[in-house]
């Protein structure tokens, strides 16, 4: 029973703390890990992780989710059996250095491992060897006096250890605690210890480094990562069917090889650096165009919630869509090509539209204020604007104007068929720049007579060309702000081939604009009363508020495809 309760406890916490080791360093616990591991995690100091801001927030999250119940039950059982304080157990076992290895499971009469099952070995170096010995003795004594306890004592080269059924083994040697889901792994680790595989204790890490890890991409292949594999393939497959996914992630195939990374934290700042296998030299320029000569900065506004920046060669991407996207997607793409030719007055989408864009493009997401809007809808959607550098702004300006006019005509025809209010095209000057915009005519659905304004009033599509950039947005309010940003130089720096920045504080404000709708949706989805749903939504907002900023970048380097993710935690404690 204890083994069953402890297994998720140890595994869960260790995985949460992200740890396995870099092999080969003196005194590194990885010296005890048998060869053939698929993944390893090293945590220099469990205590540092536990007491870090990230650890604090994670513990809060675990408690909020109620996921700590199982852990508490396991610790409670230990408390009852041994009489020792559960908190002391945590500090004893997880307070020091931790090493975790993940291994394949061999099969009888089959040379390939079982793809559906992995084995785990955890080695923890405690700060208190005497305390660990006492605790283990107490545990063994308690087990021996409990008639229901399913365990037996075993020995490997005279070293005693405990076996709980077939799937859990536990041993102590000096200041080390070893746990394995496979008896063979545990005895091999003990063998290495006996043979002097472990040298002097390593230091407690670099100070800011919380954990490091390394794994083989084999880990993401068949078997127990099936649930992760499907979306990974969907996201990273070379021939993605969905054009948007293809544009974002196509070409970024997971090559064979090792993935390594580190997790570091200082105060509220957390950084995850991951090195993926490098992309081939002949990777398509659609996703890996040459480095641009100028800046990668894209305009942002005081209301910007998030920016996704991309470095892509759209012309190459569209010209070679037949080889970049699967056969099943081709009919749809051909139709899209025809429709674009229609909207762009017969011009070639590959050459005259996509080919006109520079390599820097971005999607800017803004909170809407509706300051000059004819009607304010109950549900406030964010505004989206596609921002891209142009190769020949002068030539593209009339092209964009005609396309906008044609597109709005098509939309208005469809709206007329549904007898909904049309958009009225207009051109206004904002800081000397002509902004072409389409506003919904007030009238039907614009509120009044006790009715809220329709959700359509979130949209006032607009386009503009300014300072060599094209702005194509869902809201004229946002496009005007971006025109101002381009004039004032307010910008965010794009990084690598893809990067994003999310201002979580502003996202939170945008969500709070829609608190009523979120409460209503929670009522519908969860069958809650208004008060229960309000509490639910407040908890969600509070949880989101535990973050302040998130940013990430994907950078192509010679030795690897580098991912860095930076989190800034919020100041409030959840």
């Amino acid at each position, binding site marked *: 029973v204890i083994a069953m309760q402890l297994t998720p406890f140890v595994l869960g916490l260790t995985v949460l703390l992200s740890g396995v080791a870099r092999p080969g360093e003196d005194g590194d616990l990885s010296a005890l890990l048998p060869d053939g591991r698929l993944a390893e995690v090293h945590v220099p100091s469990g205590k540092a992780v536990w007491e870090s801001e990230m650890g604090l927030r994670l513990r809060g999250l675990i408690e909020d989710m109620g996921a700590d119940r199982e852990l508490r039950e396991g610790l409670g059982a230990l408390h009852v059996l041994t009489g020792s304080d559960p908190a002391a157990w945590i500090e004893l076992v997880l307070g020091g250095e931790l090493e975790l290895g993940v291994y394949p499971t061999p099969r009888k009469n089959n040379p390939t491992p079982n793809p559906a099952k992995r084995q785990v070995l955890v080695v923890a170096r405690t700060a208190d060897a005497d305390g660990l010995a006492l605790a283990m003795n107490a545990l063994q004594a308690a087990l021996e006096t409990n008639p229901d306890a399913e365990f037996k004592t075993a020995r490997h080269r005279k070293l005693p250890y405990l076996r709980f059924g077939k799937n859990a083994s536990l041993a102590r040697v000096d200041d080390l605690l070893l746990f394995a889901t496979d008896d063979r792994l545990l005895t091999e680790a003990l063998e290495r210890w006996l043979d002097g595989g472990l040298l002097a204790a390593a230091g407690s890490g670099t100070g800011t480094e919380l954990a490091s890890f390394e794994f083989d991409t084999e880990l993401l292949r068949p078997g127990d990562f099936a649930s992760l594999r499907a979306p990974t393939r969907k996201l990273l497959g070379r021939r993605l069917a969905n054009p948007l996914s293809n544009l974002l992630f196509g070409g970024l195939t997971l090559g064979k090889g090792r993935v390594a990374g580190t997790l570091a934290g200082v105060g509220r700042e957390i950084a995850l650096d991951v090195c993926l296998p490098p992309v081939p030299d002949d990777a398509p320029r659609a996703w890996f165009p040459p480095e641009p000569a100028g800046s990668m900065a894209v305009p942002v506004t005081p209301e910007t919630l998030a920016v996704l920046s991309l470095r892509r060669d759209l012309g190459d991407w569209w010209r070679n869509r037949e080889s970049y996207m699967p056969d099943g997607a081709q009919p749809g793409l051909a139709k899209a090509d025809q429709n674009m030719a229609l909207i762009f007055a017969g011009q070639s989408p590959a050459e005259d539209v996509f080919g006109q864009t520079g390599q820097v493009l971005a999607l800017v997401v803004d909170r809407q204020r509706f300051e000059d809007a004819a009607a304010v809808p109950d*549900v406030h959607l964010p505004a989206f604007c596609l921002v891209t550098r142009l190769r020949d702004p002068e030539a593209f300006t009339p092209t964009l104007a005609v396309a906008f006019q044609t597109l709005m005509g098509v939309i208005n025809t469809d709206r007329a068929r549904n*007898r*909904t209010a049309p958009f009225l095209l207009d051109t206004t000057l904002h800081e000397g720049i002509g902004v072409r915009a389409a506003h919904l005519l007030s009238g039907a659905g614009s509120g009044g007579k006790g009715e*809220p304004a*329709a*959700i359509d009033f979130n949209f006032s599509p607009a386009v503009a060309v300014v300072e060599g950039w094209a702005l194509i947005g869902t809201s004229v309010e946002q496009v005007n702000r971006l025109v101002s940003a381009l004039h004032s130089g307010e910008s965010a720096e794009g990084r690598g081939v893809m990067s994003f920045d999310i201002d979580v504080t502003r996202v939170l404000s945008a969500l709070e604009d829609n608190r*009523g709708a979120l409460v209503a949706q929670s009522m519908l989805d969860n069958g809650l009363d*208004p008060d229960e749903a309000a509490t639910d939504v407040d908890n969600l907002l509070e949880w989101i508020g535990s973050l302040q900023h998130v940013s990430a970048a994907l950078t192509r380097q010679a030795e690897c495809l580098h991912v860095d993710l930076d989190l800034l935690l919020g100041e409030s404690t959840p």
Partner: protein
Amino acid sequence: VTARGQIAAEASLDAYRPGVDGPFGEAEAAHLLRRTSFGGTLAERRQIVELGPARAAIDRTSPPENESDYARVLEALAPLASTDTLEISQSIWLTRMLRDPRPFRELLTLFWHGHFATSVSKVGRTRLLVRQVDMLRESGQGRFGDIVTSVSRDPAMIVWLDGNANRRHHPNENYARELMELFMLGVGNYAESDVLEAARAFTGWHEHNGRYRFNTHEHDDGAKSVLGRTGSLGGEDVIAACLEQPACGRFVGGKLFRFFVHPDPDNALLEVIGRRYRESGHDTLALIRMLVGSRVFYSAQARRSIVMSPVMLAIGAARCLSLRPDATELANRLTGLGQSLYAPPSVKGWDGGRSWLNAATLIGRVNLAAELARRAASQPVEELFGPDRGHYVTALNHTLLDGAAPATLLDTLRRDELDLPTCLRVMLSLPEAQLA
């Protein structure tokens, strides 16, 4: 219709007398709840037994004394109303059915939604359909003439049956034809010339920007003759002419009878119902109260005689057990089972009856039962049945099936110690559970 038949029909509509016509216990209370409230809890049954059939018929069809909690629910849901999306609008209506302390008004609204069937598939704007259903909820218990007048001016109905194309020099008879054939009189009770003349009377009844607008310039104010009425008739005159026809009370009253009592009334009964409905000024609530308090309502012929529509099945089970299902998920499942709210298949509405059941929908109903069972698993048993429930197999059989589950099945469920969600899924999948 023979005199003997007419006397028997009159007698069958007399008020049900407990002890004389039969018992009035929990089985009768459950029957009344299924027909007026989708279904109800064991506690609600006990209240009904205490009230007796006459007072219970009034109680279940009247607004509750206090509905402030329900008002708060509706107020909290309001921000989503503007999204104008079908799925959310369906979820909100289902939540009304689940939460309304007197769900009779929602059940009757569902009836009228099927009667004046209008679909978003052509109307396009969900908001107009929602407003139409709001109107039916508001006026549905009143006089039928008022209901039809509101429907005739309803923007969604005008779009649905091409009212804007009904013009002075080019009358479009779509609405006039359905008004007589499907809404008021039934086939064979009017002539083609009545339809054509009635269409002229409704010229100019247009929709503009989601509102009704009487377009004087497009209205034909010339002389017309409809069902014996002659003159410069307008739409209201056509409605009045239809209401005067004995066929109207028989047609609409008969449809209400089939919905609330049983699906096979004979001609004598239809004649009596039609006459009484007409004599009351087509007072819908009065007719329904008479029907659900009558001897025929509690007759063996009426019990478990109606194949439940998907909405009635789901909401009924949820109300019996006080479940709070995911309304969005429920809306999607009901669409899969053939009952997409705000989107009936045609102007005739849902066919109903045995057409609800086929190989595909039976599997869908089992899956629906599984979904409700999952929800039941997250609620304490006491919440489902109350404190004195006994064994949950017994309580489920009692609550959902009035004790009609086969004894062998009950023995198996108890012997194998199957958990409550499994038992619920099994019982909701039984043929008996498909009948109201």
